[in-house]
């Protein structure tokens, strides 16, 4: 049997860029977190029934007995989480979803937009292959130093030009060099990546509003080439050809 929601303790919870937080958690007992890159957990930082639903966050890294999530404060739920101090507890359910396919060959590029960078550290680490990393941000770049430890080349873009290329990350992405592409970020960005990479293998991590997170409520479905799929169960990682089909 799988465990339900379990309490974890906050080790650190720091604002690493404006509105972007990195939280590290451990279980109270000597237990390790499970999970593959691309999988996610549902988090509750509240005991009462308001907010009502748990919030999905991708695994950002697992090192020893510690799990890291990287999150952007959007609304009430993430605001609650951002207010937690070391020693506070929260509850989490997971790992959930399918995760990235790690069994791949060829030249690899990772492309992230904004907070879509969250699952990519763990992915790079787990691939353990030569990878080029492209990350785009709106105004402020973050996590660049963490990434540098794992990859051969990092390409950065910011829309305001504060770091790297001024503009979109897809402006400087050179698809011809790669066979496999992993991407996470705004849907419009991922669609652009897909359109640049026709014929290549594109894996993308999708988001949708979730209630149960385990495949029961059918609240998080998307239409794909192969029928209706649950982002929390058959996803969140889908291949580009599944998601971008036009009839």
């Amino acid at each position: 049997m799988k465990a339900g929601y379990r309490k974890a303790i906050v080790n650190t919870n720091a604002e690493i860029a404006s509105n972007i937080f990195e939280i590290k958690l451990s279980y109270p007992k000597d237990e390790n977190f499970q999970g593959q890159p691309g999988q996610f957990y549902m988090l509750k930082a509240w005991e009462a029934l308001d907010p009502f639903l748990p919030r999905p966050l991708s695994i950002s890294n697992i090192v020893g007995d510690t799990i890291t999530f990287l999150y952007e404060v959007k609304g009430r739920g993430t605001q609650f989480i951002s207010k937690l101090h070391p020693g506070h507890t929260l509850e989490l359910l997971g790992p959930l979803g399918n995760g990235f396919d790690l069994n791949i060959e060829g030249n690899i590029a990772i492309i992230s937009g904004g907070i879509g960078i969250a699952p990519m550290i763990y992915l790079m680490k787990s691939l353990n292959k030569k990878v080029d990393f492209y990350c785009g941000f709106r105004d402020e770049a973050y996590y660049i130093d963490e990434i540098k430890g794992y990859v051969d080349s990092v390409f950065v873009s910011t829309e305001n030009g504060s770091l790297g290329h001024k503009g979109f990350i897809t402006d400087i992405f050179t698809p011809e060099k790669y066979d496999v592409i992993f991407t996470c970020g705004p849907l419009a960005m991922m669609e652009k990546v897909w359109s640049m990479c026709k014929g290549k293998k594109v894996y993308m991590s999708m988001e949708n509003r979730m209630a149960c997170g385990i495949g029961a409520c059918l609240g998080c479905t998307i239409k794909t080439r192969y029928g209706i799929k649950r982002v929390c169960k058959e996803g969140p990682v889908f291949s580009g050809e599944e998601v971008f089909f036009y009839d």
Partner: protein
Amino acid sequence: MIETKVNICEVEFKNPVIAASGTFGFGREYSEYFPLSRLGGISTKGLTLEKREGNEGIRIYETTGGLLNSIGLQNPGIEGFIREELPFLEKQDTVIIANVGGSTIEDYVKAVEKLNETSIDMIELNISCPNVKEGGMAFGIKAETAFEVVSQVRKACKKPLIVKLSPNAENIVNMAKSCVMAGADALSLVNTFSAMAIDIKSRKPVFDNIIAGLSGPCIKPIALRMVYEVSRAVDVPIVGIGGITNYKDAIEFIMAGAWAIQVGSGNFINPNISIEIIEGIEKFMLDEGIKNLEEIRGII
């Protein structure tokens, strides 16, 4: 010793806690968290005669103390259910209730006829779906329309028949009486409340259908009042539903007159919530010296 068994229409439930339709799929996902045999019963995702893909656009939207949903009865159809889901459910040693939705009386009757030949224990008729033939009016709003559909289904149905009431009924007590007169063996209530939300930035409704269904703790006091009123007005067993997230909520519904209860949205915040509710009820019975839930059923 305490006794948590409940007998509803000659069907024996181990305990009064049933998973509510649409919040529990066909049990598979939750079976990874606990043995489904611990539950009193399971009401399946709403089944329609033909397979349905469900609604487009946003399907769930959180609100204070609950959520709005517009899933749109995505389901594999009666035959898909019988072929792909029922064999799994049959093995779970819990009461299986097939929740049936539809748009026309003919569809309801045909769906029920197909289920007659299966091992399911009971049918729960969901009469809050839009009735296309009646010009968009829901069967669950007017007592006369409900009487018609329940009577027709009753004639065709060989299983014990629970009718699931909509809280959007014009008058919930008249609706309940009408369904019982038409042959309902039991009633379950409530389904979701008609509700809506607006995205003020885009100046558009959140849901493509504009109107969605509200559930969760925010509806509990109203659902409880409806169970109370209905249980005093009719003589059939009542299954209470609406915002139940702990054993205290469940006991309230039982005291208001419910024989059993269903847990819906609560499953989303904790997959083991039903087990915690069952254990909470048992502990409450021990602490309060209650041997059988009949002692407190409808004491208000």
